[in-house]
């Protein structure tokens, strides 16, 4: 049990033991959310700034609620409401937040490395809520937390991550965490979105979802987008859906207790059939609930809180 860091920028930076510490602490905090009185005084008097320079609803609200349940004061800033619009640099804006005595800065930004960039330059804790295509550490943690909660362990579990892996920070955080904790990860998608350069990360690569259906313990479906910049990567959502969508028929070939995950927001009928999203094995809403516990644990630990064992649930 240890956690000696003020920041959480990337799961790649941390040991398996440190990451287990977060998961164990999150287990303790999950109990708080189940109570009638959903609040503990752990971060009373601390100020958290949600600094979201890229749009987000679920992650921002999750961090906000997590901070509130820890009794921290919370301020939200979006790009349009910040001085970045007026040409101020990211570093100057962040230094201003620090000058206002923010203790924790949760940042989402379109540039990979931006959380690390601030963490290296500020005394405040910096928590990465998604930096470009790099990492989304709390999403990786909540996915692992959900797998452990539902299946009892992570080691040896076969996880297929399906979709736009190349541009996905969720995929990268999942890969880092799951491989460190001993899961067997297979990335699934067309070669343009799952290039061979992922192999050195300790994963298998498959270019057909049908190859992984029978063997997987977890299928994590990523949101597929076909915006302008993706048009040269695959022909369209129709062809994608036909080759990689988790249809009802394909879902019928999954293991009896296979978990179906999605980081949201879902495109029903594209990467996942509506009935599958709402059906047996789907833990999509559990992921959202667990995200709160994981984020409470991260905020608490990065503020210097002592790690908690799972058994500390009833305190």
């Amino acid at each position: 049990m240890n956690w000696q860091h003020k920041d959480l920028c990337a799961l790649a930076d941390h040991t398996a033991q440190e990451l287990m510490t977060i998961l164990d602490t999150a287990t303790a905090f999950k109990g708080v959310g189940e109570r009638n009185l959903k609040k503990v005084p752990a971060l009373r008097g601390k100020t958290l700034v949600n600094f979201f320079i890229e749009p987000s609803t679920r992650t921002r609200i999750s961090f906000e609620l997590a901070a509130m349940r820890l009794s921290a004061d919370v301020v939200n800033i979006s790009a349009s409401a910040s001085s970045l619009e007026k040409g101020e640099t990211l570093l100057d804006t962040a230094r201003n937040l620090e000058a206002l005595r923010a203790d924790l800065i949760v940042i989402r930004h379109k540039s990979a490395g931006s959380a690390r960039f601030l963490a290296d330059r500020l005394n405040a804790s910096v928590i990465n809520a998604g930096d470009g295509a790099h990492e989304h550490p709390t999403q990786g943690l909540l996915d692992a937390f959900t797998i452990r909660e539902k299946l009892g362990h992570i080691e040896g579990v076969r996880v297929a991550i399906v979709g736009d892996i190349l541009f996905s920070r969720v995929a990268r955080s999942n890969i880092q965490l799951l491989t460190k904790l001993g899961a067997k990860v297979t990335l699934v998608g067309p070669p343009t979105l799952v290039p061979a350069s992922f192999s050195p990360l300790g994963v298998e690569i498959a270019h057909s979802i049908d190859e992984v259906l029978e063997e997987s313990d977890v299928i994590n479906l990523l949101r597929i987008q076909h915006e302008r910049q993706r048009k040269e990567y695959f022909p369209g959502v129709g062809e994608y859906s036909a080759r990689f969508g988790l249809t009802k028929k394909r879902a019928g070939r999954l293991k009896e207790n296979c978990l179906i995950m999605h980081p949201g927001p879902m495109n029903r009928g594209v990467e996942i059939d509506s009935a599958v999203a709402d059906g047996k094995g789907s833990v999509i809403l559990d992921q959202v609930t667990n995200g709160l516990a994981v984020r409470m644990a991260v905020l608490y630990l990065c503020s210097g809180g002592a790690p908690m064992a799972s058994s500390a649930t009833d305190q």
Partner: protein
Amino acid sequence: MNHSLHITGGRVIDPANGIDEIRDINVRDGILVHEKSPHAEVIDATGKVVSPGLIDIHVHFREPGQSHKETIATGARCAAFGGFTTVVCMPNTSPVADSPSTIAWIQERAATTACVNVFCTGAITRGLAGEEMSPIGALAQAGVVALTDDGRCIQNHGVMRRAVEYARQFGLPVMDHCQEATLSADGVMNEGEWSTRLGLPGWPALAEDLIVARNILLAEETGHPIHCQHISSARSVRLLREARLRGVPITAEACPHHISLTDERLKTFDTNFKVNPPLRTPADIDAIIAGIADGTISILASDHAPHATYEKEVEFDQAPFGMLGLETELAVFLEILLHQRKALTLPQIITLLTVNPAKLLRLDRGTLSVGAPADITILDPDHSWTYDRNDSPSLSRNTPFHEFALRGRALTTIVGGKVVWDLESGFRS
């Protein structure tokens, strides 16, 4: 310049004349001469190496237009500090060096403020836009030593072909920054394992290779020399090797960072390692060093590219490409090529820093021949030191080599018979 020097006891390495022996060198009125002059200032070079003044054909001195990053004066001091007596400036200034008036402005500025020799290149196309030809004849008359759109690469092959054909009548070599833009797209680092890990957009080696191949074909077709700048990829080296064996008039240069640093350095998102073309893999480094050793790459250069700290202190993908180079260039080449890899001898390395660049650009420099301008670098190839970026004369601090332990260093830099810098006493003016 009414001054005489007598450099005594040093190992004189003058590849242009096939000399490598202990002997004395004499200078009078800025020119290398046979006889020692009475009252000559004596420089004891015992135990040191006396080389023709080093030449760097790829630097960015940022004037006119971006003098907060570097000026011709401060850039020249970086050169002297690093043992370079002659530099060739790239035309991506503001305004772009695509007209005789801008060239004249730079030459005037260099003449009045620079402590080393500064030559200019002219842009191939107006505004580096890759579309319309610059007034190449007028640029030649103004004294540019080569044409290049460095920083950009002409994507339109028809435009590039005509420019090379047109340049031929003036004997001006065309230098190209090899980067196919649809493949490099918004890439900010080498495409590969590390760009995958870091989630940063990749700039694949393929984008360089494709333009190197184009340039080989154009040089072969036109018979006019094309020089490929800052080669970073193993496959480009292979293409160049094959072409040079066939006698195609194509040359290439390599930079210190491309033989010493890999893309793994980017794992901390430190923008001081962001450069174009990007740092690549260990296999690319091996291939470039092999290419230098077998003559495929015949010129060494820095691509000295200063940027202000506040410009580099931003999100990684927003930061400008480029790194300082002149101050550490000789040391990194000696550390890697001579000491670590033992890939070349010291005279061979000096050849790539003197005779070869002089030959490509037809400069009357890079030699210790009697009658030549007295540009001389006294160096110690074994001098151990640790580089501190705060010792740099540059206005910028964007070096990737801060606190690197290096072997080899210039001790005295002599330009036109005048000592402009030496390690013990620093700059003379």
